[in-house]
């Protein structure tokens, strides 16, 4: 091609969280993800774009969906992938995070996808190695690719998110997904309401620029898209004192078929995995108003776009 394409000036080296991205950066990633979504529908859903790249997936915390999604995205783009999980590695022998990453990077790694139970680990890694770092969830801090795929799915429903009303329902205080979503959605101009029991609502939450509601009916009547969050049974389940019982939670904050009938305009989302009968009735999850499985497919496309944009060129 003889002429240079005018393009958006995307200037990020890492994806540590949506805090560091501007609204335009976010929209650019989402726009680029559309073309990757198309690749997934081809008869041969694979492109050789990252065939010269080696990526390590560093998972210190268990994950099925995110890890599979990243791995699939990497393989769809032809990258070489190395997987690391803390449970089967030298971490057990007492090796520190810094030593682990230094060792891995001396094997010539171009990108690192990291999940860790401590917030800030991805930031720390940027100071240890030269590779591009992608945060796949750090503690209760951020989970930017999940937020990006949620926003991508929302844009399939309503292309312009500016002024759109998004409700996030459930366990607001234990969720990193919600933080990234709030930060991202507000940057692109959406209106966000968080809704849940007071015991699961962080006290400072208004300072992020969101509305707070404790009434599910009111919230569902207001919103264009309602995203239910998983009640994290492993963190607050069993003998919890945060709410009396899962049944009571479902009674007050579960999305039910009656809600879909009463408010015919909103779409249901859920980042998964669903506790059927807790965050929503089983029939709601399976209804045509729910786009939960689209979220999963879109996850691969969005992660491909992120990997592509951060894979950079040779610095000259």
């Amino acid at each position, binding site marked *: *091609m*003889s*002429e240079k*394409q005018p*393009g*958006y*000036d*995307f200037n990020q080296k890492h994806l540590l969280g949506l805090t560091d991205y501007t609204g335009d950066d976010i929209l650019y990633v989402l726009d*680029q993800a*559309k*073309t*990757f979504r*198309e*690749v997934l529908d*081809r*008869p*041969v859903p*694979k*492109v*050789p*774009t990252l065939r*010269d790249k080696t990526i390590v997936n560093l998972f210190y915390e268990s994950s099925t969906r995110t890890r599979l999604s990243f791995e699939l995205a990497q393989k769809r*783009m032809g990258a070489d992938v190395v997987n690391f999980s803390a449970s089967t590695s030298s971490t057990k022998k007492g090796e520190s995070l810094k030593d682990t990453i230094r060792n891995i990077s001396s094997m010539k790694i171009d990108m690192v996808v990291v999940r860790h139970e401590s917030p800030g680990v991805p930031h720390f890694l940027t100071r240890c190695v030269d590779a591009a770092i992608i945060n796949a969830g750090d503690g209760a801090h951020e989970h930017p690719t999940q937020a990006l795929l949620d926003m991508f799915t929302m844009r399939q429903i309503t292309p312009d998110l500016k002024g759109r009303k998004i409700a996030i329902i459930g366990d607001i205080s234990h969720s990193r997904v919600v933080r990234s979503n709030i930060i991202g959605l507000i940057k692109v101009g959406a209106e966000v309401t968080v809704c849940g029991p007071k015991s699961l609502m962080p006290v400072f939450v208004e300072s992020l620029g969101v509305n707070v509601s404790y009434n599910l009916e009111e919230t569902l009547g207001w919103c264009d898209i309602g995203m239910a969050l998983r009640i994290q049974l492993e963190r607050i389940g069993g003998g919890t004192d945060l709410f009396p019982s899962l049944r009571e939670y479902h009674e007050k904050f579960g999305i039910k078929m009656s809600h879909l009938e009463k408010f015919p305009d909103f779409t249901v989302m859920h980042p998964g995995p669903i506790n059927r009968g807790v965050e929503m009735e089983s029939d709601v999850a399976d209804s045509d108003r729910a786009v939960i499985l689209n979220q999963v497919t879109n996850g691969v496309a969005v992660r491909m776009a992120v990997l*592509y*944009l951060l*894979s*950079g*060129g*040779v*610095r*000259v």
Partner: protein
Amino acid sequence: MNKVQIMSSEDVKRTYLRFAHQFIEPYDDPAEPVVIGMQTRGVYMGKRILAIIEDEFSAAPDFGILDVTFYRDDFRTKLKMPQVQVTEIPFDIYERDIVLVDDVLYTGRTIRAAMDALMSYGRPRSIKFCCMIDRGHRELPVAADYVGMQVPTHQNEEVRVKVKELDGEDAVYLVNVEQEAGDE
């Protein structure tokens, strides 16, 4: 920087007309070939040729859009990742005869990438290549089947194919670019 017009809007129009006839010449059914325009200007060229085929022969061959960014071999030499554009091939290309359309044939690397890209959509019977300008300096063993104009060029020159939809005019210019900083 000096700029010479090497094709006028009238020249370009005639070339499109010739392409339209050349595309359908081998077939009994003028709708048989598949036309695929390469992003960005090849898309507009392809649409123009298609409009002529529709007008003159009342046939509508399948039309697709191809972006080859994923398959390029040169983006690692640049700092920024190039923007990916839409690819749209909403039909099966298996056992079809394809004509790829692009504005300029230069090193041949773009068309190499395009052939790779097409193969991931299926196995076409044949691929032909049509370009407005063949400016020489090939780095790969490829050739065009339909050429608007052969233009011997210098490597510090650029060929700019203009299309009305994007640039406001139909024309082709030869531009002598000074070596600017950051311009490889």
